[in-house]
Every structure is written in structure tokens, then in C-alpha cells.
């Protein structure tokens, strides 16, 4: 008995025997609760629907003055609140959008549609694209000198020249509202959690769920509460982009050296001064990473937000994908990445700006950038005016390059795709059929033929061996929720796609990462590749795989593998590179060869971090599996996608979302606990 308690290998063997026995013994039967649990919480989605309905239409009525009927009217509080939020966000988005693109909605907000129709002159004119592009360059220069100016200028000119001006500015206006809101909200929550342990305890599980829930599943509730449109997209984005900001703010604040805080206190700071002038500025590194994450998330969400009415690049990208126009999708993708990079660099430069106390400047010197912009503004408008004489048919390329009237490289990419298709058709087809028939289908049926009791024994057993009794219970609770819904089999399919994807990604990631980590240049190169790939909206990964494998499980699997290999590779490299140099030297002086170094020094020390990479791989894989519902799967994702178009989809969407999140969180619980204990034992991290 002692031997079993001491030896993990023995424990695993024992667990495997129990698992196989259970699989053999338990007979598949609808009435056998060892085979499948009864769907006891089948009614949950309906209950959620009812409560949402009640909250939105009956709960806490208040008197609201209605100017139309000149009297007070009873309206539900929540609806009024959400409507007020929607309206203010929509107003802000439109304001920014109309500064960039022109329009009438802002004027309407202050007057009325009737008035605007009667007065056709009252239109907000768009800024000429030349002014916006040079304005961006000037801002870049003011913030960080010529390099940023060049980057900003080139990015905006690219967008204009490739005919993506209008959707890009729509996306930009959306991000310029969603990102600051997320940053401020995240900062506030982060600070609050830092100050109060209780808040942190409450916030932590919420953030966990918010970060592991598939995006699709909270689109439905957002539409129910806030309707459809740009603002709904922005709110969904904020929900998704805020958690990393909270996390990083909290992390940054916790990392501020106690001596720095003491120095602030000894200087006589009040609580408030300490927070705003010592702690937050000192935590800026992590907070800025948070800002960067927010911007990336905002742009990654553009496609998904377009499902609930957000306009812009994401919407167009979705259309291009549906029409399988790979070249156009690529050009749109580049626009998204460019906007992301420019915004990221600018926010960074802004935060790093320094004041010169001794410069004695004249008026012109102090206001040179404003004056320069004024000059550019006037020049741009004059140019645009001359443009009206030059160009015919209502097109004025010096004012606005209309959508899809710019240059394009689509034909080039299309030709490339056609060539691949013509050349490798049979090879791909054979490979695809082999993979599905002899690998994927057997695995899938193995998953589906697992009795529920065996699944519980296996997962909880692993959790117990690796992370202790508490983790085993938590894992069991997560699984129980899924098992009691009517979607256990669907969840098994999701789990099957996810595990196959994670295993393949991890193997690739560990091999590639281990090879790259040997060399400084390869490390730098591979980390840059990972950074770049991660900024692409996840949808982009679906383009090439559909082209190659059509609408099959193979496509899903490939998309998952490509996407999920990113964190596996990154964490492997980071883990291996973080092995302290003196351990390497100790190894060298003991005369290790490469393999011995990898096996006895690098791997044991990097393993906890690499396992956290596997954790991320799981999250990435789950996201991709769910998104892949777009190309047809038969798992939880497909049902979530269906609930999107259902008027009563809130309950289904949320419950399904929770199922997916719980798969992720169960794995997270085990890996994180194990890695944390291991890191502590190794004295790292």
C-alpha cells in the first residue's frame, strides 16, 4: 500500500487498469447510469431564458418620462440601464467614425432624424484620407520620432491604396472606443482586486470563465441585453478584452518592489498618491503589456463581433471567407494587423513620453506639431478640392478611395491557390481519406464508446495523482455539470478534436521549440513568428485548410494544430531559455553531451513552464474547435453556432459555453496546480 502511495508510475498503471476494466464491464444502454448519466439539468437553458426574460421586461419597474406621450411610463430598470449604456457607446463610436468618414448620426443625436432630413446641408464632412494618414504620421513623430511616423504613415497609405479605407476606419472607430473602455475597466478592477483580497477571490473564477468561454456563446446574451450593432460588438469585445488587462494590472501591482512602496510612504504619500504616483507608474511594464493585449484582443474580435452587427474589416473578412476569396481575405487581414501594430506602438510611445523641464521654448516650438497638423489639414482639403476637377464620376481619389476601388493583389493569391489545388489534388484527397478513415474515426468512436463512469475515473484519477484530492473534486464537479446536460456526447466529440489537436501541437511545439531554443537567433526569430501569428484573427487559419481539405474533420484538426502549436512552441522556448545559465555551466563542467543536457538539466527544469504551455494549447485548441463550427462539425460548437440564430438561444448558448469552458477549466485546474507546486519545489517562478 505504501508503495502505491509513494510511486506515481504505479499509480498510473493502476488507474489505467481500472479504466480499461470499467470500459469492458459497463454495457452501453440508455438506462444504465454507469454508461450515461440522466440529463438532470436539461431544464437549465429554459430557466436561464425565463430569468433573462423576467429581468429584461418585468423586474424592478421604474417610472420613466416619455416625451412622446408627455407622461410617465413604467419601464423595467435593467432595460433602461442597458439601453442607456448602448446609446452612449453607440454615440461615441459614431462620433469617432464620423470624424474619420463623415455622416449624419452625431448631428441626429442632438436634433432628430426629421430635422436632419429637412436640412440636407447639415452633414458632417469626412476628413480627406490624406489628412488622416499624415495626421497619424505627425502623431507618430510627436510621440516617438521618425520611425513611428514612417510606420503610421505607411500603414495608413497602404489601407487607403488597397481600397480598404472605409471598413478600416469603421474598425478603427470601434477599436478606439472598445480599447480605452477595456483598459480603464481592467485597470479599475485590477486595482480593486489588489486592494481587497475578497474582490480578488470573487473576480478570479469570473475571469477564468470569461477567458475560457468560447466567444460565440456570449454573443447571444449580449444581443439580448444590448441589441445588435456596433455597440453590441464593442460590448462583447470589452467583455473579452478586459480579463487579461485585469490580470496583468494585478500582476504588475503585486510585483512592485516593497522598497519602492516604502520609499513612497516615507515621502509622505497619501493612499491615493501612493496608488497613482508610485504603484501604477511602477507597474507600467505589465500594465502596458495589458494594453497591448487589449488592442490585440479588440482586433481579434472584429470578425466575431461582426456576427452581431459590428461593421468594418471583420465583416468584410467574414464575407471573403464565405466566398473563399483567399487573396482578399489576406489583404483584409493585413489591414487588421497594421492597425493593431500602429495602435500598439503609439500607446506604448505615449506612455513613455518624457517632459523636459529646462527647455525654454518659443510659442512655435511648443506648438509645432499642432501647427504642422493645421497646415496638413488645410493642404489636404485644398488638395481634395482640386481633386474634384481631376477625377470624374463622383470618385475623388484625393478625398476618399472607395471600397474595393484601390489596387489589389487578389489575382496573384488566387492563382497560387489554383496551382496548389491542380497539382496536389489527388495527393491531398488520398491523405485526407486515410487520415479520416484510419485515424480520426477510430479515435472518435473510442471516445464515444467510453462509459461515463470510466471517463470520470480516468480524469479524476489523473487529477488526484498529479494535483491532489482537491483538484480531483473540482475536476469531478466540472465534468458532472457537463454529464448532466443533454450534450455529453457532443462534449466528447469536442474533447476528441481538442485532445488530438493538443497532442499533435504539443509534439510539434516541443520539437520545434527545443531546436530553436539552442540558438539565440532561432529563438528570436521563432518568438517573433509566434507573436505575429498570434495577432492574426483566428478565422484566418481556416482559409488555407478549407482550401486544402474541404469541409472535413481534417480541416478542423489542421486549423487547430496550426493555431495551438503557437503557445506550445512559445512556452517550450521560454521554459528552456529560462533555465539558469549556471546550471548549464554546471552541466558543461560535468561534461554533458547535448542529449544529456536536454534530458537531465533542461527538461526537468523547463517542464512546469512547458506544461503551462500545454494549458494554453488546450485553450487555443478549444477556441479553434468551436470556431471551426463555421466549417461544419458535430460537436458543442455547432450547437452554439445554432443558438446564435435562435431567438431563445440565450440559455442554450450560455450553457453550451459553460460546458466548453468547464472542459478547459478542468484541465487548467490540474496543470496549473501541478506546475505551481513543481515550480515551488524547483525554486523557480
Amino acid at each position, binding site marked *: 500500500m505504501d508503495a502505491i502511495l509513494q510511486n506515481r508510475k504505479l499509480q498510473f498503471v493502476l488507474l489505467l487498469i481500472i479504466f480499461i476494466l470499467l470500459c469492458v464491464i459497463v454495457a452501453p444502454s440508455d438506462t444504465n447510469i454507469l454508461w450515461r448519466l440522466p440529463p438532470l439539468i436539461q431544464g437549465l437553458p429554459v430557466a436561464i431564458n425565463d430569468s433573462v426574460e423576467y429581468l429584461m421586461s418585468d423586474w424592478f419597474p421604474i417610472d420613466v418620462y416619455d416625451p412622446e406621450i408627455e407622461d410617465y411610463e413604467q419601464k423595467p430598470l435593467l432595460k433602461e440601464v442597458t439601453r442607456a449604456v448602448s446609446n452612449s457607446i453607440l454615440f461615441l463610436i459614431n462620433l469617432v467614425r464620423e470624424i474619420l468618414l463623415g455622416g449624419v448620426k452625431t448631428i441626429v443625436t442632438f436634433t432628430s432624424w426629421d430635422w436632419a432630413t429637412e436640412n440636407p446641408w447639415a452633414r458632417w464632412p469626412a476628413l480627406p484620407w490624406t489628412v488622416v494618414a499624415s495626421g497619424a504620421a505627425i502623431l507618430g513623430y510627436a510621440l516617438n520620432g521618425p520611425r513611428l511616423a514612417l510606420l503610421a504613415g505607411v500603414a495608413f497609405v497602404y489601407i487607403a491604396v488597397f481600397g480598404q479605407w472605409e471598413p478600416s476606419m469603421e474598425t478603427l472607430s470601434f477599436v478606439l472606443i472598445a480599447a480605452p473602455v477595456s483598459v480603464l475597466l481592467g485597470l479599475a478592477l485590477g486595482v480593486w482586486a489588489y486592494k481587497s483580497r475578497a474582490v480578488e477571490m470573487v473576480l478570479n473564477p469570473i475571469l477564468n470563465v470569461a477567458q475560457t468561454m468560447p466567444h460565440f456563446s456570449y454573443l447571444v446574451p449580449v444581443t439580448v441585453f444590448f441589441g445588435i450593432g456596433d455597440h453590441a460588438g464593442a460590448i462583447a469585445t470589452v467583455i473579452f478584452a478586459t480579463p487579461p488587462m485585469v490580470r496583468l494590472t494585478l500582476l504588475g501591482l503585486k510585483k512592485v518592489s516593497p522598497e519602492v512602496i516604502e520609499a513612497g510612504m516615507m515621502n509622505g504619500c497619501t493612499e491615493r498618491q501612493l496608488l497613482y504616483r508610485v504603484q501604477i507608474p511602477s507597474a507600467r511594464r505589465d500594465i502596458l503589456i495589458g494594453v497591448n493585449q487589449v488592442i490585440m484582443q479588440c482586433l481579434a474580435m472584429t470578425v466575431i463581433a461582426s456576427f452581431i452587427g459590428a461593421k468594418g474589416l471583420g465583416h468584410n473578412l467574414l464575407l471573403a471567407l464565405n466566398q473563399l476569396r483567399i487573396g482578399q481575405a489576406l489583404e483584409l487581414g493585413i489591414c487588421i494587423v497594421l492597425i493593431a501594430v500602429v495602435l500598439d506602438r503609439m500607446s506604448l510611445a505615449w506612455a513613455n513620453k518624457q517632459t523636459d523641464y529646462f527647455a525654454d521654448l518659443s510659442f512655435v516650438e511648443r506648438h509645432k506639431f499642432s501647427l504642422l497638423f493645421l497646415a496638413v489639414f488645410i493642404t489636404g482639403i485644398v488638395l481634395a478640392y482640386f481633386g474634384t476637377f481631376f477625377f470624374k464620376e463622383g470618385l475623388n481619389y484625393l478625398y476618399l478611395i472607395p471600397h474595393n476601388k484601390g489596387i489589389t493583389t487578389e489575382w496573384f493569391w488566387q492563382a497560387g491557390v489554383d496551382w496548389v489545388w491542380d497539382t496536389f489534388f489527388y495527393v491531398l484527397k488520398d491523405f485526407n481519406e486515410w487520415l479520416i478513415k484510419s485515424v480520426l474515426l477510430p479515435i472518435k468512436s473510442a471516445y464515444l464508446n467510453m462509459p461515463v463512469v470510466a471517463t470520470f475515473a480516468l480524469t479524476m484519477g489523473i487529477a488526484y495523482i498529479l494535483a491532489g484530492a482537491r483538484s480531483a473534486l473540482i475536476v469531478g464537479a466540472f465534468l458532472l455539470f457537463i454529464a448532466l446536460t443533454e450534450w455529453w456526447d457532443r462534449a466528447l466529440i469536442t474533447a476528441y478534436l481538442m485532445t488530438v489537436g493538443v497532442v499533435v501541437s504539443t509534439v510539434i511545439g516541443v520539437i520545434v521549440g527545443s531546436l530553436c531554443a539552442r540558438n539565440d537567433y532561432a529563438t528570436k526569430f521563432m518568438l517573433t513568428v509566434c507573436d505575429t501569428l498570434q495577432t492574426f484573427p483566428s478565422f484566418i487559419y481556416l482559409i488555407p485548410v478549407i482550401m486544402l481539405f474541404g469541409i472535413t474533420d481534417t480541416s478542423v484538426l489542421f486549423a487547430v494544430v496550426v493555431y495551438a502549436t503557437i503557445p506550445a512552441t512559445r512556452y517550450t522556448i521560454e521554459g528552456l531559455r529560462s533555465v*539558469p545559465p*549556471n*546550471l548549464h*555551466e*554546471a*552541466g*558543461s*563542467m*560535468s*561534461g*554533458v*553531451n547535448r542529449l*544529456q543536457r536536454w534530458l*537531465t*538539466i533542461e527538461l*526537468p*527544469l523547463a517542464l512546469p513552464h512547458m506544461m503551462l504551455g500545454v494549458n494554453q494549447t488546450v485553450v487555443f485548441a478549444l477556441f479553434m474547435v468551436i470556431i471551426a463550427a463555421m466549417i461544419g462539425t458535430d460537436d458543442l460548437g455547432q450547437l452554439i453556432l445554432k443558438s446564435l440564430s435562435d431567438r431563445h438561444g440565450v440559455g442554450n448558448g450560455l450553457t453550451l459555453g459553460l460546458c466548453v469552458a468547464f472542459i478547459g477549466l478542468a484541465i487548467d485546474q490540474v496543470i496549473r496546480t501541478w506546475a505551481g507546486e513543481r515550480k515551488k*519545489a*524547483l*525554486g*523557480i517562478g
Partner: protein
Amino acid sequence: MKNSAPDNVKISCKNVWQLFGAGAKRFLKEHDYRPNFEQITEAGIIGGVRNVSLDVHEGEILMIMGLSGSGKSTMLRCITQLLKPTSGEVFFDGTDLTKISGRELIEIRRHKMGMVFQHFGLLPHRTVLENISYPLEIQGIDKETRIAKARELVDIVGLTGRENYFPRELSGGQQQRVGIGRSLAVEPDVWFLDEPFSALDPLIRKEMQDEFMRLQTQLHKSIVFVTHDFDEAVRLGDRIAIMKDGLLVQIGTSEKLVTEPADGYVKAFVENAPKAKLISVGKIMKPGQSGDNGFEPVNSDAVLEDVAQRIMLSEKAVPVTNKQGEVVGSIDKATIVKVLFEA
């Protein structure tokens, strides 16, 4: 130890350069292996070690002493080939380490070198015993033999009873004992110590220094010992090499450094050194057989600390005798005052 035969050279470094930066090798060639400080800085290169030549004799303790950034650790890594020198030769028992293959180097490290690290460099996932037996495991020695050997070393470094502790369960001093045990596991010819006691608190440091001297009197290894602590260098070293900005400023016995500092930098360290403990009478006496004036003589090997009081209180010069009792010179109060007080 003090008087090891100078002809038994164990390690010999000839014109070792270690430059950090792109194109360092080409830069060195272009400047005929003699670039000066300005040229190096201008090229955006960092001069880790600049043209250092030194010998380590069999059985001696050579201290490489310098402040942070002086290149002392880099020099040690050039000798052990943990860093490939940009140029220069490092002879180990007559073999040029810079020219041998990776496999040969591994063999030499496995059997002839042992190294102790400043921050211990212990593998955190292994116990004391497993850490000490690690180099033997790497050589492929069977488990029984290596465990037996490791147990022996655990006893030698005074950790008996803690074989199955993990590094995290030990204090800093104990961890370094494990590091020392590991470095001795393969019975190396040359022992490298890279600031082994710098991370320890002063009382423990003193204790470990004593322990180190005790081990060395048993083992008689050839030792290269890096430190930033001049007192430690004086206390433990047979010879001291002082480095600054990658250059070897001076190398010699502590007595030589104290009596003939090569420049102001060496002087700055020597100033606070206990001169009276380091300088022997013979070094500063006035030579000549005529010194015998009937006063009780002092031995030429005696350090000033032990005899100064008598010399200074004596009205006349005191005769100095060698081991055979022959008068070889004389020493008076003025000479001592000059040596001890004149900066």
C-alpha cells in the same frame, strides 16, 4: 604549497582575448591582435578579457581578483572553455583546449576538471546525493559505484545525514558544500572556484574559507579561484592576479603586490591590506653581512607583524639571519615605518 616548483605548469594561457560583439574575431585580426581600449569601444565591442597571459602551477592556488565587470569570471570561463576565447591559447597539461574537438573537451571536463559556482548551480530536482553523483552519472558510471563515491564526499564536506535533502531545504553555506562535493566527485586535477563564498554571510564565509583550506591541505589540487574580495584573495591565495577592465593588471604573491603595486589601482586595494601580516623581514631588510651588532637577531622569513614591536623599540638596527642562522642583513625602525605607513 607556498613554494611549489615553478616548472610544473598545469595550465598556461597565452594572449587570451574574449571580445563580445558582432565581428569581434575579424576586428581583432584587423588590428593585428593589439587593439587599444579606444579602438575597442569605438567598434561597439565589449572587451571581456584583453590579451591575458598567465600560468597556473601544479598544486598552487591562483586567485583571480577583480571587481564586477573586470573580466575575472570571463577569464575563468575562457580557461574552462565555457566561453570560447576570441583568440589566444589555453594549454592544459600541454594540450591546447581551444583546438580540440567538443568530444575531447567533454572527456577532459569529465575527468580532470571540477568547478564550484557562485550561486551553487545545484540541480533543484535532485537530492544532495544525486547532485554530488551527477558528474559520475554523466560519465556512465554504474549506480552502486557512484552512490558509494558520493556518500564518501558527503562525509568529506560535512553533510552526513543530509544525503536525501533537496537543495531548497539547505542553507546557503550547506548548498555550497554540496557544490564543493559535486566538483570533487570526479577527483579532478584542477579545481575551479567562481566566487564560491560571495553569496554567503560574512561569518559563514569565514567558516567556509577555513573549510576550504582544510580540504586543500588534504587534496593538494591545482586551483583557480575567482573572487572580488581582496581580503579573501590575500587569505587564501598563493599568488593573486588582479584584473581590471579585462586587463591583467598585476600577478604575483600578496607580498609582492603589497610591496611593489604595479599601479594606483592595485594600490587602492593594497592600502587596507594588513601589510604587517604579509611582508617578511627579508623582503625589506638592508642586505649585508655587517649587520651583526650583538642584538638578538630576527629571522628573514618572519612577517613584520610578529617582530615589528621589538625592532621598533630597539635603539639600533636589528640583525637579520637566514634559516642557517647566518647574518644576511639588518633592519631598523625607519625601514618599517616607511614600508607600513607610506602610501
